[in-house]
């Protein structure tokens, strides 16, 4: 006979405000097999847990149902409490009274009834729970960091400095990411490359870091501590061992007019190129789409001039397989591209540019060597207009969120402009100035008060060209919605930060969740900001949401600590929620008939054939067997099995049918 304890939590008032917790506890106390039932203010608190522990010991409970918040929140807490009181942790189940009941329904009898039902389902289920033991798995102490921007660089260095191996992959020819494109950084106005490039070099020279640029994740298998990743190393068309990075090829390449990605299309590059002078590794790659040899079949100038014979036209992509124990995703973000703002004329007028393009204009290493010159005719703009929230906070554009970094970089841009163009006039159209952060508000005030940037609160409806000027039609909402018209020489759009193209595919390869904007989802918005829902995979930087540099760095260090913590153990424990094929006494051995449908259904190749032999070594029966190391517990095989011979621990047939029956019988 089961002796089950039911513990109903008020969660302060979160549950008790709409659910009559005392009634739930009282009703549950009358169920068959329930030996103890109680309600309490905070079950997860220390006294709450002690209540559970003492009840287990005093009443000799064989099962526990905690009716409180989502099991995704506190299941580990209560299972641990049970284990400490000597009850197998898998004899503890949670009824989700908060997220699935009290928070989503109005106060009333129906809500309390639902709570009672939810408790009853689990009381009946827990009667069929079995003691389970956690599975031990080894840990491969190498981390994979995807993305070589500032977040990926920081995470790699932090993990590597704890003494563990790191593989860093970057899809572009050089690491550095968006930060390497920036001119100066807010709120200190120190040069971005001056603080970044030493870190890049450190990555390249660190004995624990293996860097693969021009490489992407092809596929991922396995689970926490035991991932197997396939990495596609795209062909660079050079032999990296022979190349010295002398630059002969890039100066002699005849194809010179390709828009440079690093300069956001404002500068040109050659077909064989190094993205920027401080690139790491500082070795060129051939852009096959634009190289004359790949298009027309002849040229090979680079091969002729290369002093070390490092050019390899026939090089192919390499697929490399690596074993890793944890992954940090730091793939960053991108900005919303042209044709998104037809009313602002982006793409139509050369002098309407994005914030990132302005960074390149303001950068000493940029196409204008740091002089603010407009792209159309190279003139210094006398009047410049900055537009905040180009796309952001605009549900009509599908981007209701705030891109967070724009308010700050616009203030920085306007400041840089005022410093570089004396006598120039700058205007900023804004909705609100969001400058939350250390020294941030002061920075914006400096732009307005010391540098005389004109901030106009209002939106811009249209930009068009007239007599060589860009006419900006806006409104000043602080002056009673007075229309404002500015004849500008250049307009900078603070375009919304959005998820990378391909973010969705990457999330699907990694089996992690993502939000409707394709930013990767953290496991908990407050308490688990760097973890994903997939154990062993962590997030850093702007791939999770728009982030500035200090936040990305902090997040990367946070993710690195999580990885280091994981690698500090030699063995991990895994939940024993896995499938098992039943075994019975001879002459049946197993109800499995050996159809092996399950083998074809299993996404992890975790099911194998086992031959049952008699004493003479003759095969009597061929049955399925689950490899507990590989099984992830999805249960697809369970639903496939014709003879119901496979069951998944924790979600057995008995348990699931009992749940359905318990739910409806006293509904």
């Amino acid at each position, binding site marked *: 006979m089961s002796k089950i304890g039911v513990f109903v939590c008020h969660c302060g008032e979160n549950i008790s405000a709409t659910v009559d917790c005392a009634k739930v506890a009282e009703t549950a106390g009358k169920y068959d097999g329930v030996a103890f039932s109680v309600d309490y203010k905070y079950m997860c608190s220390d006294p709450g847990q002690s209540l559970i522990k003492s009840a287990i010991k005093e009443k000799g409970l064989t099962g526990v149902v905690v009716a409180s918040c989502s099991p*995704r929140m506190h299941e580990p807490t209560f299972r641990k409490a049970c284990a400490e009181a000597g009850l197998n942790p898998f004899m503890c189940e949670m009824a989700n009274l908060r997220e699935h009941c009290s928070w989503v329904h109005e106060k009333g009898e129906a809500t309390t009834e639902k709570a009672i039902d939810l408790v009853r389902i689990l009381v009946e289920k827990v009667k069929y729970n079995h003691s389970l033991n956690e599975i031990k798995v080894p840990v491969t102490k190498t981390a994979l960091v995807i993305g070589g921007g500032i977040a990926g660089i920081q995470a790699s260095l932090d993990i590597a400095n704890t003494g563990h191996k790191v593989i860093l992959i970057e899809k572009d020819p050089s690491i550095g990411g968006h930060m390497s494109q920036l001119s100066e950084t807010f709120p200190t106005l120190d040069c971005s490359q001056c603080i970044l490039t030493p870190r890049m070099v450190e990555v390249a020279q660190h004995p624990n870091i293996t860097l693969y640029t021009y490489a992407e994740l092809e596929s991922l298998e396995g689970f926490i501590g035991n991932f197997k990743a396939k990495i596609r190393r795209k062909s660079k068309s050079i032999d990296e061992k022979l190349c010295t990075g002398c630059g002969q090829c890039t100066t002699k390449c005849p194809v010179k007019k390709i828009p440079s990605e690093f300069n956001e299309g404002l500068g040109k590059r050659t077909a064989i190129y190094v993205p920027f002078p401080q690139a790491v590794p500082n070795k060129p790659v051939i852009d096959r789409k634009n190289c004359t040899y790949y298009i027309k079949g002849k040229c090979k100038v680079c091969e002729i001039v290369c002093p070390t014979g490092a050019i390899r036209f026939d090089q192919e992509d390499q697929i490399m397989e690596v074993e890793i124990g944890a992954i940090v995703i730091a793939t960053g973000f991108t900005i919303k591209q042209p044709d998104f703002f037809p009313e602002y004329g982006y793409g139509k007028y050369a002098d309407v540019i994005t914030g990132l393009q302005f960074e390149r204009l303001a950068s000493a290493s940029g196409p204008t060597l740091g002089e603010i010159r407009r792209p159309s005719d190279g003139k210094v703009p006398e009047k410049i207009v900055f537009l905040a929230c180009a796309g952001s906070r605009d549900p009509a554009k599908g981007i209701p969120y705030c891109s967070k970094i724009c308010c700050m970089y616009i203030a920085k841009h306007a400041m840089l402009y005022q410093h570089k163009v004396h006598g120039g006039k700058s205007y900023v159209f804004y909705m609100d100035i969001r400058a939350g952060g250390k020294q941030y508000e002061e920075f914006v005030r400096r732009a307005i008060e010391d540098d005389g940037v004109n901030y106009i609160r209002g939106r811009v409806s249209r930009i068009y060209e007239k007599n060589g000027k860009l006419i900006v039609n806006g409104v000043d909402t602080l002056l009673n919605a007075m229309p404002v018209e500015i004849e500008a020489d250049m307009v900078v759009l603070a375009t919304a930060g959005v998820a990378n193209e391909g973010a969705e595919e990457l999330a699907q390869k990694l089996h992690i969740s993502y939000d409707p904007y394709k930013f990767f989802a953290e496991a908990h918005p407050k308490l688990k900001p760097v973890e994903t829902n997939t154990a062993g995979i962590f997030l850093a930087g702007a791939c999770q949401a728009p982030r500035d540099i200090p936040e990305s760095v902090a997040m990367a260090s946070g993710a690195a600590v999580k990885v280091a913590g994981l690698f500090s153990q030699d063995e991990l424990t895994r939940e024993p929620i896995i499938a098992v094929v039943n075994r019975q006494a001879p002459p049946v051995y197993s109800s499995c008939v050996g159809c092996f449908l399950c083998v074809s*259904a299993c996404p992890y190749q975790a099911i194998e054939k086992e031959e049952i032999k008699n004493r003479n070594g003759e095969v009597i029966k061929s049955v399925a067997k689950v490899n507990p190391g590989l099984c992830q517990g999805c249960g697809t095989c*369970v*639903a496939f099995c014709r003879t*119901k011979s496979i069951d998944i621990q924790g*979600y057995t047939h008995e348990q699931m*049918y*009992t749940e359905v029956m318990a739910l409806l019988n006293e509904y």
Partner: protein
Amino acid sequence: MAEFEPKIVAFVCNWCTYAGADLTGTSRIKYASNVRIIRFPCTGRIDYMLLIKAFDEGADGIIVSGCHPNDCHYTSGNFHARRRWIMFRSLCDFMGINTERIKFSWVSAAEGAKWADIVNTTVAEIRKLGPYTDYKKVAKYQEKEVTHG
């Protein structure tokens, strides 16, 4: 007479829809209280005999919901569920079970509002259909025996 309150059972996967329903709670979006959620590791685990069992025990409507195609935590469980649903639907048709009483859907962990919406529309639709008494005729209902699976 009070309005008919249908009994709806929701079979959901742990990774997307269960988490999505959690988000509905965290966002305090209200929805009809007629639904009871049963958690599965994956929609691929859902043996469709459970749906029959639910009708047998007196459910008026059923929601099956998991991860969106390609988003399955276990790679392909939701595809198996979808394929099985197509087969199961024609079987239901053949048996005379009204498939309008089963709602098959995808709700991701980020779609709290969608979950509330699905519950509300399902409740409204089932309310219109009325209590599901036909099942017992279809199944040549007999005295219940207590058996599992």
